[in-house]
Structure formats: C-alpha cells, structure tokens
C-alpha cells in the first residue's frame, strides 16, 4: 500500500463574507498573527508526511502562488543587509517555498466541494491523497492528519475526519455520518448526509477534518456530477455516499484531543486570530496579559 504523500486543497472561493479585504487579498492568505491561514493547514499536512500539495484556485488569486512558490529575492536581499538580527526572518521567509512541492491549478466547473477534486484529477495518479479545506483546521496533540492516515492504513478504506457537533444549528451547517463503531472513535460508515437538520441526522459526527481517498473515488465523483440536477451544489460527500451504495467500505475517524478552528466568517476569524496569538511563541505571554486585563475590566463592570 502506498504512503499518503499528496494533498488537494480547494482555494478558489471569492471569500465575499470577508469583503472588502478579500477584494485584493485571498481569504486563505489572511493572517493569523504573522502567517497566512493556508500556511497553518500546509504545515499540519507537511508534519503528517505530505510532500506534494495541489492548490485548486482561481486565476485572479495570484497571492498564493507568490507566497508559496516565489523566492522573494528583493526581500531576501534586504534582510541579508540587516545582518545577524534578521537571520531568523530570512530563514522563515526562505522556508516557505521549501515546505512542499506546490502546484496551483485553476478551478473550472460547478459550485461545490466536488469540483476541485475533478480539476485535480489529471495530477493525482492512483495514490491515496488527502482532500482538506483551506479555511479551517485542527490543532491537536497528535496531528489530525496523522490520526486519519493511521485509520486509512488500518482499514485501507476512504477516511472522513470527523468530530462531534451537537448544537442545533450545526446540523444545518455540516455533513454528518452515521454507522457502526469498529473501535473507539472509528466508525464504519453506513450513511452520509449533507446538512441533514437535527431531525434527520444519521449521528453526531460532523465531517470537518477533510478526507483521505484514492483515485477509486473519481468514477463516483463523475457519476454524481453527471446526475447533478441543475442549480444543485456538487458535494464531495455525495461521491462517498455512492461508494457506500456500491458496498464499498468508508471509515469515519473521530479526531481526538484536538481543538477545531474555523476562519470562514468574521467572528470565527477573529476568535481564531486571538487563539493563535495566545499560542504565539513571541507575543503569546504579553498578549495573554492584555487579554486577562480585558477580562478583569469587563467582569468588574457587569
């Protein structure tokens, strides 16, 4: 069985919820303190052994290519003249392009999470690959992608990264899986329902950690695409649903000891910014002090 070394990241959205900044800056490139959101996803993938990263993007979103692939030699030159005090920054700067082999391809096709994988198909081969999103991530004691890869290697079946989400509104926001437990936190899936609503939920595990699949998924994805009614969204999960219908095994892996961070709207982006600042090695201690002062002031008022 071949190792999981590839990842596909969809990043073609306009990010209109974050306008006006996303007029010019891709939403995936918005900073969490001093690095773009997408870099955190990339670093998590790299830590899990991913070497090749295919970013499926739109032609006008050139900042991602500039950031992950360019050498930025003007800036590097400027830092070199700054002497030893700038060496760490120079290392950070030059490290970005060496994180992985990046390929950027343009998205064409209908709206939905299925399309980026169809666009990446010519570059995928027969190997397993991770399909994961660019505006949310887990910070886990054990890397969330490592947790998923272990499940993939154990069951040799597609893996859906999941976590329980049980607030009423969640059932209208995420895809949910149901099935029978094979081992703690490992479920053989028998139902995948996109935005089921609380009444029709197949279980409490929401699909929000990405997927590991192989090229096996592609024929199913094409089938879903071909049969897609007009004006319907093209969900990746629907292809996994088709695999279940066909009697293929699909496993849900509950991501454990992990905090989920979302950046998909202004409020979640702000919360995640604060959380990353608190964890930041350089500014964390002082920022925590600033926050505890804030909390003190706001508690005494009420």
């Amino acid at each position, binding site marked *: 069985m071949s190792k999981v070394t590839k990842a596909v990241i969809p990043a073609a959205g*306009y990010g*209109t919820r974050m306008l006006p900044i996303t*007029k010019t800056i891709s939403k995936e490139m918005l900073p969490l303190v*001093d690095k773009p959101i997408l870099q955190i996803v990339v670093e998590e993938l790299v830590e899990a052994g991913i070497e090749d990263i295919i970013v499926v993007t739109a032609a006008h979103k050139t*900042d991602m290519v500039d950031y992950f692939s360019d050498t930025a030699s003007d*800036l590097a030159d*400027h830092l070199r003249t700054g002497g030893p005090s700038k060496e760490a920054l120079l290392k950070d700067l030059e490290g970005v392009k060496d994180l992985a082999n990046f390929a950027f391809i343009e998205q064409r096709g209908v709206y939905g999470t299925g399309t980026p994988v169809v666009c990446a198909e010519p570059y995928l081969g027969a190997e397993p690959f991770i399909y994961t999103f660019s505006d949310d991530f887990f910070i886990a004691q054990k890397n969330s992608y490592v947790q998923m890869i272990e499940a993939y290697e154990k069951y040799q079946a597609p893996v859906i990264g999941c976590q329980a989400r049980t607030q009423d509104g969640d059932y209208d926001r995420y895809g949910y899986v149901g099935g029978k437990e094979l081992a703690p936190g490992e479920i053989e899936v028998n139902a995948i329902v996109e935005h089921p609503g609380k009444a029709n939920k197949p279980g409490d595990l929401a699909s929000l950690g990405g997927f590991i699949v192989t090229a096996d998924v592609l024929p199913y994805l094409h089938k879903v695409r071909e049969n897609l009614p007009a004006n319907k969204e093209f969900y990746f999960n629907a292809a996994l649903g088709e695999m279940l219908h066909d009697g293929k095994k699909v496993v849900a892996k509950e991501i454990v000891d992990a905090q989920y961070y979302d950046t998909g709207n202004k409020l979640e982006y702000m919360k995640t910014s604060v959380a990353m600042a608190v964890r930041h090695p350089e*500014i964390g201690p002082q920022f925590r002090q600033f926050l505890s002062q804030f909390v003190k002031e706001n508690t005494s008022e009420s």
Partner: protein
Amino acid sequence: MKVRKAVIAAAGFGTRFLPQTKAMPKEMLPLIDKPIIQYIVEDMVAAGITDIIIVGSSSKRAIEDHFDVANEDLLNNLRAGGPKKQHYIDELEELANLANFTYVRQKGPYGNATPILSAAHLIGNEPFIYAYADDLTVATPNAFQQMIALYDELQGTIMPCIRVTDDVDFDRYGILGGQPVRDDVLKVDSAVEKPGRANAPSDFASVGGYLFTPDVLDYIESGLKALPEGKEFYVVDSLVEPMLKDGKPYYGCVIKESKRYDTGDKLEYLKTVVDFALQRKDLGDDFREYLRTKV
C-alpha cells in the same frame, strides 16, 4: 488654501510581520475585514482630502488593486448572489471612488523624509497631510479633521501630539518646546528627539504625521543637498529644525478624545485587531462573550 492633498508613506518591507508580508504589503494587513491603509484613507476622505499620493515600492501592487475598480469575476459572483449581496457591490464601488489615487515609487536615501521627496513633484504649491500607513488614530472629529481645522485657523505646520507623563515616553518620542497658544495647542520653537524627562522642554510628544505648509518642499531640496553622504534623511533633522530656525510657524496639537493605535509590530497589531472587533456592531457582543468566557 484648502487642504486637499495627502501623502501616505508605504514603502517599508514590513519585515516585522514575516512570513506574512512575504507576498502582502503590511499596509494591507486586515483589521477584521478591511486593510489598515483603508481606515487611514477613509479618515482622510472624511476630512475633505481628494488627492492621495501613496509612496510605495515594487511589492505594493495590492494597495493599487485595492483602491481600483473591483475585478469583474468578483462582481459577477456578487451579482449572482442577488439582492443580499448588493451591499457588497455598492461598497466596492465606493471603495474605488474614494479619492484620486496616485502611486509613486520611493527613491532616495533611507529615512522618513524620502517619501515626501518622491511625491514632491505631485504636490505643487499646496498644504498637504503627510501620514504613515501603520499609525491609526481614532477620534471624533477624526485626527485629520482636527489638524485641518487648526491649520485653517493658524496657517502653520501642524504636528499631532500626545501629552506624556511616563518617564519612558520622554525617551521614546520627539518632544516639542514652545509657548502654549491655548490648552493642548503649542506654538513650537524647538523639537528634541528623545530628550529624557530631565531635558524635556514640555510634555508634548510628537506622534508622527504632519500637515505641512507648501514651503516645506523648498526645505526638501536644501535638506537633501545638505545631507552628508550615507546619512539618513529624517523629517525632524532635515525639515522641521531648519524651518523652525527660519521662523516658520509650527504648532503641536493634542488630538482631542482620541485613541492611538500602533500597528507596527505583531503584539500591537493584535491588540488593535481585538479592540476594533470589540467596537464592531456586527461582532462586538459575540466576540466580547468569547473573550470573557473562552480565553
């Protein structure tokens, strides 16, 4: 003469925010959903500025794009979203028509007087605001409005100030000396860089940013000529001091009911983000609750 021009210095590499600033100008760092420089531009426009000259470098294209008309793909996407996305289309159109923007590249010696040198040929015989792109002051009326009102009255260069009390601040800011015109306005006769409390001529600390009289451009030329080889070109040394020596009128003014935000380093940037998010009507309550309970 009516103040209608402004120069914004935006040529720095922003190395303190690396790696983020590898492919994104630090002036474009967001405070929630809007880049820092847009807050500054909006304040200028509200103060009656119509012509904005941004002094940048080859890596600052995103600033030009941001104040340009929006890309047609984005507009089409918003149009497809129907009436509920219309406000974004309106907002983007407004953004493209905020002011007349001119972009010039910075050339010349290192230092904060160089952006003025690079923009000089576009300013003409007019007063103008000179601002840094990482220095935000929130006030009502806004800081530029207050500076312009004072200029209209006193017809001299206006330097925004804060009153300092802590010992460290006397070692951190340029301190102005002179005669009080009234509360919080000083007719300046000297400017001393980081004098320490013992030698400080007053408690008026200059916080950066100016509203210059047109004759400053004469001093740009002579200042550059007088600058020794390899020396840095600073506003205070090369412009303010010679102008004061020649008896040009300068006023230090405390911006009333204001809060200053420095976004020049990571910690101050993050504090500013938090503060701005708390003040937002659409986020403030939920965000405050998060900070109180979850952090």
